[in-house]
């Protein structure tokens, strides 16, 4: 299979709101993000940053009380999924867009064997040749280092966390979807299993010619597998660019602070610094101005009133008033 199968994705001005007693609050505020065909993109952010909401929007699957209020999600070969509905949408999910849910451990039906769930999936998508589907599933599981026949005959409780995660990936790919979204693919797995899953994701991505989106709170996971990285904060993409560039020379103060807050295995451990303050929740996102200003060492007067728009710096986009301006050493000290 070649890369020509891999679809590109363009998210434009996406606004998703959740209905609360305090009115409609934006979980995503005019998010723009482009996934180039054939790449692995990572979305990192803390809880409440809107990363899972953005991922669900790719399937137009934001659940009430949330709704997509404005914007578009344009997927090659599918059009704008925000405009899709009913059967069209149902068929697109699984066929064109595969989704591996957070805690794949719990997304399997405990009362049915994996094989039965696979057949359900096939029937609901009107697959004519079910034996071929089973064959494909077995091959995929085999590719991921599992005994396909045994796994298909197993109930979820008979499988380990790492095995269930691989079953989730198999179910997302078996209908030949070429856009795959993985939501927290390795949370709750231990280190060695995590490394195995990430290797599989990378290999399967390359072999099948996919466009892959990985949503995670763990920068390490994103660093390991992604080509591009989008950093989210308070319902906005604050920095987006090639992974090595974003991690190697972060420009947004949040990205910088986040990378600094990770204890590492080499170097001076005492250089790790906690980011002051805490991330905003839906109710505490400021109505105007920059969402990060309360925790920002580079805060200026303009940050209180104007929400910085993402601006391009080479391959990178950064949404910050202070980036691009010469930074006074006195201000930078906060990070030293």
């Amino acid at each position, binding site marked *: 299979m070649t890369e020509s199968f891999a679809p590109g994705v363009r998210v434009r001005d996406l606004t998703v709101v959740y209905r609360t007693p305090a009115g409609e609050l934006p979980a995503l505020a005019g998010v723009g993000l482009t996934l180039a065909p054939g790449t692995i993109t990572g979305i990192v952010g*803390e*809880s409440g940053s809107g990363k899972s909401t953005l991922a669900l929007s790719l399937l137009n699957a934001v659940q009430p009380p949330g709704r997509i209020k404005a914007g578009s999600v344009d997927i090659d070969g599918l059009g704008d999924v925000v405009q899709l509905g009913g059967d069209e949408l149902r068929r697109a999910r699984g066929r064109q867009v595969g989704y591996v849910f957070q805690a794949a451990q719990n997304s399997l039906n405990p009362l049915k064997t994996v094989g039965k769930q696979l057949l359900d999936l096939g029937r609901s998508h009107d697959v004519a040749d079910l034996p071929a589907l089973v064959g494909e599933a077995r091959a995929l599981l085999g590719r991921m*280092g599992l005994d396909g026949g045994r796994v298909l005959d197993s109930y979820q409780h008979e499988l380990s*966390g*790492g095995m269930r995660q691989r079953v989730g990936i198999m179910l997302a790919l078996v209908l030949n979807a070429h856009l795959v979204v993985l939501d927290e693919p390795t949370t709750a*797995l*231990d*280190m*060695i*299993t*995590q*490394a*195995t899953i*990430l290797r599989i994701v990378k290999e399967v991505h390359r072999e099948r010619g996919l466009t892959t989106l990985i949503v995670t*709170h*763990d*920068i*390490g*996971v994103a*660093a*390991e597998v992604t080509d591009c990285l989008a950093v989210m904060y308070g319902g906005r993409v604050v920095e987006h660019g090639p*992974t*090595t*560039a*974003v*991690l*190697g*020379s972060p420009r947004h103060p949040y990205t910088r*602070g*986040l*990378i600094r*807050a*990770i*204890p*590492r*295995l*080499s*170097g001076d*451990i005492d250089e*790790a*610094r*906690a*980011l002051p303050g*805490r*991330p905003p*929740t839906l109710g505490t996102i400021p109505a105007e101005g920059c969402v990060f200003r309360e925790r920002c060492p580079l805060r200026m007067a303009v940050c209180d009133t104007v929400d910085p728009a993402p601006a391009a710096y080479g391959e990178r986009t950064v949404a910050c008033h202070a980036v691009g301006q010469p930074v006074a050493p006195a201000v930078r000290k906060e990070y030293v």
Partner: protein
Amino acid sequence: MIIGTGITKTYRQRGSVLDGRDVLALRGVDFAIAKGGAVTFIGESGCGKTTLGRIVAGLETYDSGEIIIDGTPLSPLRHRQRQAQFRRVQLIHQDPYSALNPTRTIHQTLDAPLALRARRMGRSKAWAQERARELLTLVGIDPGYVLPRYPHQLSGGMRQRVVIARALTVDPEVLVADESVSMIDVSLRLGILALLKDLRERLGVSVLFITHDIATARYIGADGELYVIYRGQVVERGPTETVIAAPVHPYTQSLLSAIPVLRGVEQPGPDLVLPTEALDESHTDTGCLFARRCPFRTDHCESERPSLGYGEDTPQEHACFHPRPRSVIPVEVSA
């Protein structure tokens, strides 16, 4: 000082009488937690590290072995006396969302143990009130804000701090932190770790840290000791920095090799070790427990089990017939 010698624990797997299989969770583990020290247990899920932590906290029984707290062996003691000893060890749970009673305000949560303590020590109720405020300030939160609130009104990081404050109400000597930051947001994690480190330095509280995130162990106690546990056996033990920088056991090397590399900032270590297969509980127990997955195994490994001890010239103890230091952790790219 808490010392454990030859701790074993066996779980009987559920099943019929015939196919019920014994799972050896701990196979004769020795440990020592010095006053004010930092000890970390690392290993894959199911290796026995959590069981050991719960045994240290007195929440789990053990089949054989002995625990000695400040020179007092616990096995001859009556239940009550033993409980009193274990009160000096407090467990901080993994999940701050379920560790606090949702129907009680933080004030009620902290006041219950403090009032009991005040009565025992013959102090006034006012002392208990004052102490609650002191403890919350100590863990870095504003008592005025937190005390009247219920857990659901607090963020994860704040809740974890309340859980730590509650553990401190009984003036423990050891805090057992089992994956205590894994459910906290990345930007707040370091704050909790810094708090544990601070408590260790200021109050002389020992910290037993149980985790699979080895870098956090380094943050809490680079001067501490690291225990690498595999299938109920300690396979490598030594100063944290040494074991991380130059591990000699292939299992430790596999664990450290699996840590994601921050590309752009780091590059992979030169000697990465990949286990040859995944953990399978049905692996035989003869020989080295890791032999089946070890890329360096020899016939010797499959017939005899190495015990923990110092090698010829390694600064750490290990249980391996072919120890060789390898550099597996990510290396910082020089700017």
